[in-house]
């Protein structure tokens, strides 16, 4: 019977999933535009500001504004990727070559299912998270699925049958595997802190936010303040996991042309690109949920109280929208931080990346875990 009820809700779930994908995909595209703009502004340039369809040029204020922020370059880029010739080089293993970008997209869009993107106040006064699947494995699922992304990198590098791609793939996979350890170890203290002994445990991200929205000084404190080292390690590992500067070994266009996607072009390349930004969005989302209080606007000001101050606590739709806006705003700030770092810090050498990962970050993460294990033990004794 329960199977049947589940089956009944399936069309709705599919719709929800599609809606989330329809937000993620353009958001990733918009991030690529934002990247170009942030890069330009940091380099004292205006950035792309030319493209405009002529009927938009007639709109008085909005048209020039959209042109100035490069909104139509985004559309033009997308159209270009769609309509360009799909070149498959002769030396590649065709099946795996085509499979790799698809494999890159799947984990990138799957992880979003367990990431809550907002909350509203339910009928019983408790917070109901907005997410596709509120499961207890939560963060574990994010890590498990996101780490599948490395297969697409290896596959792309290998199937391309070119030395640049191959080296890029090998570097990227080695890097992803090295930093995953620190990434996972850095968030364990958070869940040790959340889960009291005896009570039902969870690795859900919604619970982490709930924990940061409690009343009182310690309840409202974001985990960034309780566990700065964890947040720091998580952030560094996130940079490495998403192949962002200064850890973009996979791409390193100076020595590897384009890394694992050297041989890719047109829409297949853009899939890798979108997947990278999706990973960034999800990664920033997880960081915000775990360490920056999720949808709570300020430390010690939980969403419920904020909604009460605005006088919309009784309207679940408005509260839900508000929470999504707050969370999205924080995520976009994080993405801006990613870009800001990218256009500031030069790329590490490959041996430096490995040394930081294994000899600095991993011991630090283990020490951090031990510190909080002992700390929590002392506090709860």
């Amino acid at each position, binding site marked *: 019977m329960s199977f049947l009820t589940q089956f009944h809700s399936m069309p709705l779930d599919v719709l929800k999933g599609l809606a989330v994908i329809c937000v993620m995909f353009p958001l990733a595209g918009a991030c690529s535009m934002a990247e170009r703009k942030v890069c330009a*502004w*940091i380099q*004292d*340039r*205006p950035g792309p500001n030319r493209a405009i369809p002529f009927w938009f040029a007639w709109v008085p204020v909005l048209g020039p504004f959209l042109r100035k922020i490069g909104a139509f370059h985004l559309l033009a880029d997308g159209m270009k990727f769609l309509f360009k010739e799909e070149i498959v080089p002769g030396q590649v293993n065709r099946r795996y070559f085509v499979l790799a970008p698809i494999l890159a997209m799947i984990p990138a869009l799957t992880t979003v299912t367990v990431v809550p993107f907002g909350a509203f106040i339910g009928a019983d006064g408790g917070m109901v998270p907005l997410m596709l699947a509120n499961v207890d494995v939560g963060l574990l699922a994010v890590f498990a699925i996101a780490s599948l992304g490395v297969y697409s990198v290896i596959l792309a590098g290998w199937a391309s049958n070119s030395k640049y791609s191959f080296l890029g793939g090998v570097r990227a996979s080695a890097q992803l595997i090295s930093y995953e350890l620190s990434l996972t170890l850095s968030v364990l203290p958070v869940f040790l802190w959340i889960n009291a002994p005896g009570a039902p445990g969870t690795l859900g991200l919604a619970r982490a936010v709930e924990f940061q929205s409690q009343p009182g000084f310690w309840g409202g404190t974001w985990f960034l303040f309780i566990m700065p080292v964890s947040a720091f390690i998580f952030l560094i590992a996130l940079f490495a996991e998403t192949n962002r500067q200064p850890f973009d070994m996979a791409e390193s266009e100076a020595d590897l042309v384009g890394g694992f996607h050297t041989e890719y072009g047109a829409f297949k390349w853009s899939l890798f690109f979108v997947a990278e930004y999706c990973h960034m969005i999800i990664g920033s989302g997880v960081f915000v949920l775990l360490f920056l209080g999720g949808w709570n606007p300020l430390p010690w000001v939980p969403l419920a109280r904020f909604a009460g101050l605005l006088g919309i606590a009784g309207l679940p739709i408005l509260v839900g929208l508000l929470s999504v806006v707050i969370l999205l705003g924080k995520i976009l700030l994080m993405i801006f931080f990613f870009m*800001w*770092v990218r*256009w*500031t*810090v030069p790329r590490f050498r490959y041996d430096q990346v490995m040394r930081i990962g294994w000899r600095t970050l991993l011991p630090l993460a283990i020490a951090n875990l031990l510190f909080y294990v002992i700390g929590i033990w002392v506090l709860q004794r």
Partner: protein
Amino acid sequence: MAVVTLERKPLTLAERSYLPQVAAGLWITIRHLFSPNKTLQYPEERPAIPPGYRGVPTLVKDPNGREKCVSCQLCEFVCPPKAIRIVPGGIPESADSAHVEKAPQAFDIDMLRCIYCGLCQEVCPEEAIFLQNQYSSSGYTRGEMVNNKERLYELGGTLPDTHFKWDHKKKAAEEAAGGHV
């Protein structure tokens, strides 16, 4: 100069962690993020051309409107990429400047070959050819990129000139002739 041996100090922990450096870098870039652009919006905004700029070579006239080139072909000979082609010609007897005797019949500069070295300007004994301010030339065909005599004068215009070499020469010749007669 004496050799000064500097002691290489070991890096401090802060330096090895690289984080203060990253923070300093972030501070620099965020300031640039909010600083005004240093670029020009090219086709709409044009750069100010500094004096002495070597742009497209042009032919100039003197303030009286006489074409200065006497088709001596020195520029043609000196031109390293052989971009200049001159067909020398005479000046009709009836003209005001008949005493100059020669003027180019045709004067072509192939801008696809020109390397903007300015040797033609340097070698010209009549100060007739100048590399002026125009820096962008474009065309749809190779033929369009060859500047003929008309176009060269159109680009060059008239430059101030205080020598009036040929006028002085004519005057001197007339005076000499007058004195003898």
